[in-house]
C-alpha cells in the first residue's frame, strides 16, 4: 500500500501541474486511488456537497431571500465543507506519507497514538458514519425534501409506502418520513451532545473536587453518587420529567443531570492516582498552588478516560432520549425525534413498517457508531499503546 502511494506521489511530482489541478477538482482522488480510506472520505464529501449544490441549488438560493437560522447554519456548513475538502487533501492527505517516513515526527506529535486509532478498522468506520451523520444533520434544511410537519391531503397521502416521491414513505398524517427522520437526527444529536457536555462538566467538577479535597468531603460526595447510581436511570428520568412540563430544554437538562455520576467516579479515581504522581510532586516542589496543579497537571492527565466515557455517553444519551420519547415523556409531537417516531409507528408496524423501522435503524446506527469510536479512542488513548511509556 505504501509502495503504491510512493509511486503515485512520484508520478504526481513528475507531471507537476496537472496533479495540483486534480487536487482542486477532485480532492482526495489520488489518496483514494493509493488505497487510503481517508482519501475516499474526502472525495465522497466533496461529491455529496457539489451534488447538493447542483441538485438543490434553488433551495440553497432561497436562504438569501427568506432563510432562518437553520438555513444559514446549513449554508455555512456547505461553504466550509467545500473549502475544507481541497485544503484537507493538500495539507494532510498528500503530505502525510512524508511525515510517516521522516524522523521529523518527534517534535509536535502528542502522547495520543493516532496511528492506533487509524489502524482500528471499526473505529474508522464509526468515525466516518458519525461524520456523515453530523454533516447530514447540519445540512438537513437543504436535504429534506418536505417540511417535516407539513400535512398535505392527509387522507390521500397517509401511510404511503416508500416510493420515488417519498423515499421512506409517509406516516399516519401524510408527513414525509425521510424529512422527519432528518430533522429527528438534529434533535437526537443536539440532545446527545448538550446533555453529555452538561454531564461531563458536572461530573468533572464533582470528581475533581472530591479527589483533591479527600477526607470527609470525598466520602460524602462519593456516597451521594453511589446513592444516585442505585436508582435505575430510566426511573429517575421519568420521575424528573413527570414533575415538569416536558420540553426540549428540560429533556436535555434532565438527561445531563442523570448522566454525570459515572464521570464523577472516573475523574475522582484518576485524580486520586494522579495526585500521587512524581510530576505532581515536582510541580508542588516548584511552588505551584493547588488550583494550578489541578488544572494544568492533574486534569489534563485525567481526561483521557473521560473522553472515552463521553463518547460512549453520547450514544447512551441518544438511546435514553429515544426511550423517553417512546414513552411520550421526551420530545413532544409534532417535533420529530427518532424516539417519538418509533412510538408513533409502533401500532401500525404490521401494515406500515417503514414509519418505525427507519428511525429505529437510525438510532441503532448512531449508537453503534458512537460505541465504535469510543472503543477506538480507548485503544488509542491507552498508555500501554503509546510509544515510549512502556
Amino acid at each position, binding site marked *: 500500500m505504501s509502495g503504491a502511494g510512493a509511486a503515485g506521489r512520484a508520478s504526481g511530482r513528475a507531471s507537476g501541474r496537472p496533479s495540483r489541478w486534480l487536487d482542486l477538482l477532485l480532492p482526495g482522488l489520488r489518496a483514494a486511488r493509493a488505497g487510503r480510506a481517508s482519501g475516499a472520505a474526502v472525495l465522497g464529501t466533496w461529491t455529496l456537497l457539489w451534488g447538493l449544490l447542483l441538485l438543490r441549488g434553488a433551495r440553497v438560493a432561497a436562504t438569501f431571500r427568506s432563510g432562518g437560522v437553520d438555513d444559514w447554519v446549513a449554508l455555512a456548513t456547505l461553504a466550509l465543507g467545500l473549502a475544507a475538502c481541497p485544503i484537507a487533501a493538500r495539507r494532510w492527505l498528500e503530505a502525510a506519507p512524508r511525515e510517516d517516513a521522516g524522523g521529523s515526527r518527534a517534535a509536535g506529535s502528542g*502522547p495520543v497514538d493516532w496511528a492506533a486509532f487509524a489502524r482500528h478498522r471499526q473505529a474508522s468506520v464509526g468515525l466516518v458514519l458519525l461524520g456523515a451523520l453530523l454533516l447530514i444533520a447540519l445540512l438537513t434544511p437543504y436535504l429534506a425534501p418536505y417540511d417535516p410537519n407539513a400535512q398535505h391531503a392527509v387522507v390521500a397521502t397517509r401511510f404511503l409506502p416508500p416510493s420515488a416521491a417519498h423515499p421512506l414513505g409517509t406516516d399516519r398524517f401524510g408527513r414525509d418520513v425521510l424529512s422527519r427522520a432528518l430533522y429527528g437526527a438534529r434533535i437526537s444529536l443536539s440532545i446527545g451532545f448538550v446533555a453529555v457536555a452538561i454531564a461531563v462538566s458536572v461530573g468533572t467538577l464533582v470528581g475533581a473536587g472530591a479527589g483533591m479535597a479527600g477526607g470527609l468531603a470525598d466520602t460524602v460526595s462519593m456516597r451521594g453518587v453511589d446513592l444516585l447510581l442505585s436508582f435505575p436511570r430510566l426511573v429517575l428520568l421519568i420521575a424528573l420529567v413527570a414533575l415538569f412540563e416536558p420540553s426540549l430544554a428540560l429533556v436535555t437538562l434532565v438527561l445531563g443531570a442523570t448522566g454525570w455520576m459515572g464521570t464523577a467516579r472516573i475523574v475522582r479515581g484518576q485524580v486520586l492516582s494522579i495526585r500521587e504522581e512524581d510530576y505532581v510532586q515536582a510541580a508542588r516542589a516548584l511552588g505551584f498552588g493547588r488550583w494550578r496543579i489541578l488544572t494544568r497537571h492533574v486534569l489534563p492527565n485525567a481526561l483521557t478516560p473521560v473522553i472515552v466515557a463521553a463518547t460512549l455517553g453520547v450514544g447512551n444519551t441518544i438511546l435514553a432520549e429515544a426511550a423517553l420519547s417512546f414513552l411520550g415523556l421526551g420530545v413532544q409531537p409534532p417535533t420529530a425525534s427518532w424516539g417519538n417516531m418509533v412510538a408513533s409507528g409502533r401500532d401500525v408496524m404490521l401494515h406500515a413498517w417503514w414509519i418505525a423501522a427507519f428511525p429505529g435503524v437510525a438510532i441503532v446506527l448512531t449508537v453503534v457508531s458512537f460505541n465504535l469510536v469510543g472503543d477506538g479512542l480507548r485503544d488509542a488513548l491507552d498508555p500501554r499503546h503509546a510509544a515510549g511509556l512502556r
Partner: protein
Amino acid sequence: MTGRRETERRAGPPLLEVEDLRTWFRGPGGDARAVDGVSFRLEAGETLGLVGESGCGKSVTALSLLRLVPDPPGRVMPGSSVRLRGEDLLEADAERLREVRGGEIAMVFQEPMTSLNPVLTVGRQVDEGIRRHRGLGAREAAEETVRLLGRVGIPEPEERRRAYPHQLSGGMRQRVMIAMALACRPSILVADEPTTALDVTVQAQILELLADLQREMGMAILLITHDLGIVAQVADRVAVMYAGKIVEEADVETLYRRPLHPYTEGLLAAVPDLDRRRDRLAAIPGRVPDPARWPEGCRFRPRCPHAWGRCGEEPGLLEAGGDRRARCWLVREPARRREEVPE
C-alpha cells in the same frame, strides 16, 4: 554579584540550618520515626552529600525541608526547625512557602521518567516555572526557556522544547528537570538521587553539569544519594544517615580516609574496588530496622561488629576534632575498636 551576596550571607545566619528535624508517619504499628532528630547546615556555594541505605530517611529529610511530606500520614513534629537565612520555613504561611519552593529551594527528583508531566511539552514545563517565579512575559519566558535548555546541554533546544517527555531519553529528561529547577536561580538545589536511574556514562555527564552550574550560579547543593562514589566526586562535606539520624559528619577527604562510625566503615568497605580484588563484596550484615521499632540505645548496635556494653545507651553526635562528628562511643574510647573485623 554572587560574591557580594556571599559576603552578606557570611555575616548573617547560615543559608540553611536544619535543627532537630523529626518527621514521623502515623501507622497501625505505631509511629514510624523516619526522620528522628536530624541537624545540619548548608552554606552558600557548598555541596553537602547526604548518604545512606534505602529507608534511612534521606528522601523524607529532603521533602521535609519544603514541607512536601504528605500529611496525613506524615508529620513534621513540633520542635523541628528548618531555617532559610534565619527564617523558619516550618512556620511560613502557604503563600511564602510557594515562593520559596522553586524560587529559593528547588528540587531535582530521582525518576526523570515520571517526574515530567506526560501531556505537556518540555518547553512549556520549563516556561511555567519561569513565569511563576520571575514574572516574565510570554516571549521573554520562551527565550529564557530555550536558553536554559541549551545551557543544560540539550542539543537543538529550539526544536526540543516542542518535544513531549516520552520522546526524550532518560538523560535528556533529567536535563530538563535540572533546567526546570534552575529556572528561577534558586540559592539551594536539593538533588534526590539525581543520577540513580541513569546509565553510568550519563551519570557522569549530569554530575559534571551540576558542578558547572553550581560554579556559575553560586548555589548550594544538597545531594542525596546512596552512592559513595558520586559523593566523592562532587561533595565538599558528607553527612551519613542511618535509621533516621545523622551518624557521622565530616569533609569528604577525611571521611573516606578514616571513617569513624562503624556504619560508615561498612559502607566504604561495601564499595567494589578494582585495586583490591576480593572474591566477595563486603556487606553489612542484617538490614535497616523497622522505623516504628528502632532498637534501644545505639541504633546500629545489632549490626555493629564493635558493639559492647555501653552501646545500650544512645550516644550523641560526639565531636571528634577537626570539624567532624560521629554518633558512636568509639570516639570516646578508640581502644574498643577491634582492628581485625571477622568477616
